[in-house]
């Protein structure tokens, strides 16, 4: 499981039909279950580990994991976008619990909670 959406944290971006995580995935792998109001990675085996979903989530509900075949769980790496300031910070923790942070310049781009796509996608059911 390369990325994991924590169902206890995910709030479905309120009423968003197409929340940021779902829109930003280049592989169309994330769906939102509108009955539970939670997003879910539907096709974990197709994940590229590229992280737009993680960066886009406004409440940091998505955890970045490594496929277990590559190494033990327990290591952590999470990005934090500094809104309004053009920086991103990555908080890292290795399997021995040693912590480190990396702050890097970027251009912070706004992402809306929802989007009405001109292709007529409003009012459709995107649930699983």
């Amino acid at each position: 499981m390369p990325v994991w959406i924590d169902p206890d944290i995910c709030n479905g971006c309120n009423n968003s039909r197409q929340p940021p995580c779902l829109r930003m995935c280049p592989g169309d792998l994330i769906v939102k279950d509108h009955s539970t109001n939670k997003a879910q990675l539907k096709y974990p085996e197709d994940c590229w580990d590229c992280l737009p979903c993680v960066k886009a989530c406004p409440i940091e509900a998505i955890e970045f994991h490594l496929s277990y075949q590559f190494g033990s769980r327990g290591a952590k790496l999470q990005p934090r976008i500094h809104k309004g300031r053009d920086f991103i910070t990555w908080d890292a923790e290795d399997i021995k619990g040693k912590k480190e942070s990396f702050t890097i310049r970027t251009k912070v781009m706004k992402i809306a909670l929802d989007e009405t796509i001109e292709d007529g996608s409003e009012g459709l059911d995107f649930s699983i």
Partner: protein
Amino acid sequence: MIERQTIETDILIIGGGTAGCMAAVEARERFPQYKVTILEKAHIDRSGCLAGGMNAINAYLNKGETPESFVRYVRSDSCGLIREDLVQSMSELFEYCVKKVEKWGLPVLCDDNGDYIPRGRWNIKINGESLKPILAKAARSAKAKVYNWIVVTNLLTEGDRVVGAVGFSLRNGKFYVVRAKAVLIATGGAAGLYRPNNAGDASHKTWYSPYNTGAGYAMGIRAGAEMTSYEMRYVAIRTKDAIAPTGTIALGAGAPQVNSKGERFMVTRYADIGGDGAPTPYRAHGPIQEIKEGRGPVYLDTRGITPEKVTDLKKAYLDMYPSQVLYWLANDIDPGKEPVEIQTTEPYIVGGHCQAGYWVDNERRTTLKGLYAAGDVAGGAPFKFVSGCWSEGVIAARTMGKDLSQEGLAQMEATSVPESQVDQEETRAFYPFKNHEQGKFGVQAAELESRLQKIMEQYAGGASTHYEMNEEMLKIARKKLSTLPGEIDDLVAADLHQLMKAHEVIDRIDVAQVLVEHMAYRRETRWPTYHTRTDYPERDDANWLKFVNSVKNTKSGEIEMMTRPYEQMVSGDRYQPGKKPGS
């Protein structure tokens, strides 16, 4: 009943990636009178190769370099055979493009004098985590009309002219029919033709974007466009398991390749062709031979680099390939103390690293009227990377605008495609649904994909045969592949996502068949590993200093092979990278 959405536009761009977004901006800025429409299978904010970000612009004329010195380098790096006109024309626009994107907000690292900081001879450093959303915003601000989540399935043609494209929406399931006066194809390269390095839930842990599945090549093949140099596959050296680019370490930290005995084998065994600076195919070929001959594993020797350098490396990966850093964290690896193990990837078809793709003229027109190509999908010009893809987008946009004005097409009504063609395309786009509705047992896209990958892996020069191939193997590959187009009819899809997967495998099969013909046709080994012919192990300039091209006959379905001459434009020894002018 499938709903249809018809769109009319002047310029249609298929694929809103690196090249596509840049082309859209250029077209709108230079020709504001023309409507520009982008069809993108994902969301242009984070689609294609740039989704995760970039940490360098890999093709740039650093101080003192010239288009000619660039051509000399790329020519020797590609073992003496490139389209020099294409490589030169793209290099002339590197600065124009990079400055533009910097203005849009991309942080480019500068020294105290405000000069870009080089990383190796042709690269500059950037903080490109957000590169894709920056480009997307520019395309939107330029008022290109963007349709996200449209999987394009085919081109529309009338006579010998391309007049639009069709596809379906992953969101609303409608069939999109777009009529256009000029069409730019910018769908990137092809991953997933060969078995990937990793299995299970990491099978998409590939280097190249697993969502670029060769759609643009396949549409062109089906429409009868001329293709070039598919046999120059790309096999990348990447970090073990994580499959992250190694230039970050090799160029960023100056780490050489060593084998298990600590021997710098590129220096000891490949001195005559440049040692550590040998052409890129050899830098993949070298480590493969070490492993094959029992001297593996192979590493990039990072031992002894300072803790500051280690931090820089990690930051560079976080800008482009964050899972490399998580891999180190999870495996307790400190690259300052342990060398970084490397491996080679499965072969990809990528016109931006090698030169597989559409045969284009210097203005990026393909051989089909009304169809243009830019980026990884366009052939003949390796060493494109991000900046070369931008350049090609710009060149193609300028040509489209010019052609529209000159041909008087702009005033014309969009050509009306016969309804029967549109109906046929609709059936073709959606038949896996029908198969599913009819309760056919059928074939799943994933099954067909593994069948294709097994054939390619075992008979067409996959990693398990050290990328080697010969006539006999390719004959078997050809025969086995020839059964697949028949199997396509049985594909089933229960939802739109599966329908996309079905078309991805259909496209890959078309590409794989052409690839095998190209690899069989070139009877020499010019690019070891990319195309190792064990039955013709030497380079043969007397017979093969030329391009291998193909056209799929639209009537007979035969793949017809041909050659095109090489032209040397820039003086000098074709096998020498040349020096920085004046040095």
